[in-house]
């Protein structure tokens, strides 16, 4: 009986934590302990639901272009902090700070902040040390 109760509680907890509520899915796919900076050229700024993506061409160590998919939140949330569908355009040079995907075989990450052709891009506030632990 206790096992059943525990399973139920775990299921409830999982249901409540499975999505960030703001991002439609868990952020655990991104390595929150790592911040990576990438520099490249915007290939496409995909203003789409449920998530906006910045497609960036980044040269790897061998000088070969690789396409990165940088995931943001939804358009509904982004407009409220000042982003627009035209904030980035193909060809823009950008520097982006991201939490990379845990699966290093896929070039992708979670957008944190960065700079674009017109200066700093609106980003997420950085938590103060120890906050939320």
């Amino acid at each position, binding site marked *: 009986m206790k096992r059943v109760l525990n399973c139920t509680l775990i299921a409830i907890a999982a249901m409540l*934590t499975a999505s960030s*509520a*703001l991002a439609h899915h868990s952020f655990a796919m991104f390595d929150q302990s790592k911040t990576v900076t990438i520099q490249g050229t915007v290939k496409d700024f995909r203003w789409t639901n449920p998530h906006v993506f910045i497609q960036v061409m980044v040269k790897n160590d061998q000088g070969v272009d690789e396409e990165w998919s940088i995931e943001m939140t939804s358009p509904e949330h982004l407009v409220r902090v000042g982003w627009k569908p035209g904030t980035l355009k193909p060809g823009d040079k950008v520097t982006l700070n991201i939490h990379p995907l845990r*699966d290093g075989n896929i070039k992708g990450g979670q957008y944190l902040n960065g700079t674009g052709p017109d200066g700093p891009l609106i980003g997420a506030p950085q938590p103060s040390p120890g906050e939320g632990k």
Partner: protein
Amino acid sequence: MWRRPALAAALLLCCAAGIQAQTKMPDWSGQWEIVGVTPNASGGVQESFEQVLKQMQWSPPNRPEVQARLDQIAAAQLKSLAAQDQGAEPLASGPTCTWGFPAVMIDSPLMFEILPTLGETVLIFSGREVRHVYTDGREHTPKDELWATPWGDSIGHWEGQTLVVDTIAVKSAARGASPDFLPIVAFGGGGTAGFRMKVVANLSSQARFVERIRMVDNGHLEDQMTIIDPASLTAPWHLSRTYRRAANVHRMVYEDCEGEDRNPIVNGHYTIVPPPSHTLGSAPAPTNAPAGQPTVPN
């Protein structure tokens, strides 16, 4: 002959009364967001969880047995979040765009519009959820026609510029939730997952909600909510939320869980797949995704 002027006068009075009544409707135009649940660009929350809890000042009078269960859920949640910090990925069972009531009013990050009219006030949320609050004097839906939904059954009336809403027949929007699982959740930013949450109460299917919604100043609305639910609370629970007009937004921007979803679950993990081809009719090709079939898009 005298009837015509009399009829015209009656019509004029009627129209004037109607116009006067309409002009008394408050101007609640604009896009409203809940203070304390403002999204940031990454998908987290601007305000820290501690700030949110302080602002809420919620202390539901939970029945002891309910509180004991909530404590167990909170402990399991902490474990779940700690596991996420280590890379575990709890997988959602489906789209999470539906919030339902009362979440849409107290802990949702989605904007909404309020359209007060003479007989009904409509609240439209960016995720396409709608609350209909009938203010034409009708009673609640008769019992033999009533069933629980995530938005409940709402009637209301105006007390001056305050909209008083009475809502019953609410069930959780979560898929597979039992009738007596209607959690009230506090969200905030922080932690390595980007957000934190806590279930502060769990209501039953018998819960009744009375809201008093009013403008407190030019840019803020307030919802004073009283929840009556003897099955889970020892006394009525009074809580409040403040809404402000969202900055930078001049029309509804829709939220959609489907759209161009690029986060399928592959081999038990969420991943990112490349954008779909621009070629009309071609299917998205996860060319750099690991082996395995994408399942359960969320």
